[in-house]
Each structure stands twice: as C-alpha cells, then as structure tokens.
C-alpha cells in the first residue's frame, strides 16, 4: 500500500531527555567498544570532554521523537519495511549530564520501482539540540524503504 503523501513535511512532537553516564556505558558495552572514554570520566576529560561523551551512533536511541509511534502514525507495516541507511551530521559533542531536545520531521516520501515491486522511500530527519545552550548537536537522516 502506498503511504499517505499528506505526511510529507509532518513534524512529530519534540522529546526531551537527559543523557546519563550509565546509558552511555550500557550502549558502549552493547556495541563491544572498550574505549575507556565511555566508561571512565577521567579518560573522557583527558580527551577534552567535560564529561563522558556519546558514541557516534548513540543517538539511534532518539531516532524518532514524540509520544506517537512513527511507524504506526505513517501506517508502515513492519513486515514491508527495510532500513535503507542512516546519515549523521555532527555539529557539537554531547556528553553525560546534557539535556537534549530532539524532533523528527518527515522530509520526503517518493515512489520508486524495484525488483520486488513498487516501494516508497521515506526520509525522516531528526534534529537534536542542547536544551540549555540551544546549540544544534546533530541531524540524523533516516532512509526507510517501504514496499507497497
């Protein structure tokens, strides 16, 4: 089924979250990254961070903002969904103790033809900002493939 084009430009509610050292350590362990900067505050500081920094893909936790589920809102069936890829643009580092605000917007939905038939390519962009400094931290650009 073709996705509803009215969702192009749709913005989900923003979300707010405080980053903790424990969550960073948990994430670093899950990806089996033993870099001490993710576990030990002194090591983070030695590398010039004011606290323990987030690994580059830590923000995958914040791919979609808002209370409403991204996929059910757009009417995406998980069984027809493929993750096409991800791009991160990093503007400023984020460390434990920071409170961030992030918001997701549906950038585009385009129809393409593939070997498996027609599909919609959905591009969703989530932007993260530091709540206190208002500084932009990252953009996550998520490409989803949804077969009709």
């Amino acid at each position, binding site marked *: 089924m073709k996705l509803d084009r009215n969702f192009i430009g749709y913005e989900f509610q923003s979300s707010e979250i405080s980053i903790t050292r424990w*969550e960073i350590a*948990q*994430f670093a*362990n*899950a*990806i*089996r*990254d033993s*870099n001490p900067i993710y576990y030990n505050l002194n090591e983070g500081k*030695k*590398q010039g961070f004011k606290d323990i920094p987030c*690994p*580059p*893909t830590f923000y*995958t*936790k914040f791919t979609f903002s808002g209370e409403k589920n991204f996929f059910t809102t757009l009417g995406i069936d*998980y*069984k027809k969904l*493929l*993750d*096409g*890829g*991800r*791009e*991160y*643009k*990093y503007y400023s*580092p984020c460390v434990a103790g920071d409170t961030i605000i992030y918001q997701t917007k549906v950038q585009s939905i385009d129809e393409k033809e593939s070997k498996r038939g027609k599909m919609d390519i959905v591009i969703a962009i989530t932007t993260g900002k530091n709540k206190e400094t208002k500084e932009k931290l990252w953009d996550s650009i998520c490409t989803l493939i949804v077969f009709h």
Partner: protein
Amino acid sequence: MRNKLNFEEISEGLELPEVKKGPIYRQQLVDYASASGDYNKLHYDEGFAKQTGISGCIAHGMLVMAMVGSYLTDWAKGGILKNFKIRFVGMTNENDTLSFTGKVIKKYKENGDNLVQIEVMSKTQDERITTTGSAIITI
C-alpha cells in the same frame, strides 16, 4: 592517553588496517536491543524471525553501523566524526564475524580544521558485504 594521529602523515589513498569484530552472538543482540531501545523481535527471537521469511536472527543495522563507528574512532584516536553515512546492503546474521576496511579518499583543511574523508565497508566471514559508507573526521 592515546597518541593522536599525525595529520601530516595521512595521505589520500591510505588504507586503514583491517579489523575483525565478532562473532555477534545472541547475547550481544539482546544487549543492543536493550541499550538502543530497538526491541524488534527479528533480532533475538528466532521463531519470529523465521515467520518473516528469513533463516534466523539478524543483527540490527544500527548495531553494525555502531561497530563501523568504533572502527573509525579507534583508528582516528580521538578524532571527532563530523559526518557519518552508512547504507545497509546486506544482512548481518547472528554469529557472523565482521571485518572492517577503510580508505582515506580525501584529505583537506576547512575553517582551520584538519579533515579526512574515509570510505568504509563491512564484510562477513564469507565475504558478503553488509554495509558501505563514508565518514568525515576532524583529526
């Protein structure tokens, strides 16, 4: 403290040493589901995975991207990623061991920053490519 990379010693065409990571066991898939909040059962419930028509549990695409990220930050020794892009081209199965390779394709200065652009790829033990991508790193 780790030694920093010397920007002057990096040249375009330089290949990053190959690194192997894994095998990716079910425990890691469960750990990643919990750490990332992605609880799609495809990654840790074999029965469910088979219902969707695949032969067993597969790794989260974003777990593989995270492993590529570690490969890059380990190589860059404190260098900061500015841009990081991955395309998922094949499935990484449970128990796969991935090997990561990369190459410097561009070296340049911008606004006083020393930057390198890297092309990167992950392959399974049977030579299947699972991700391709690129990154820009401030050295």
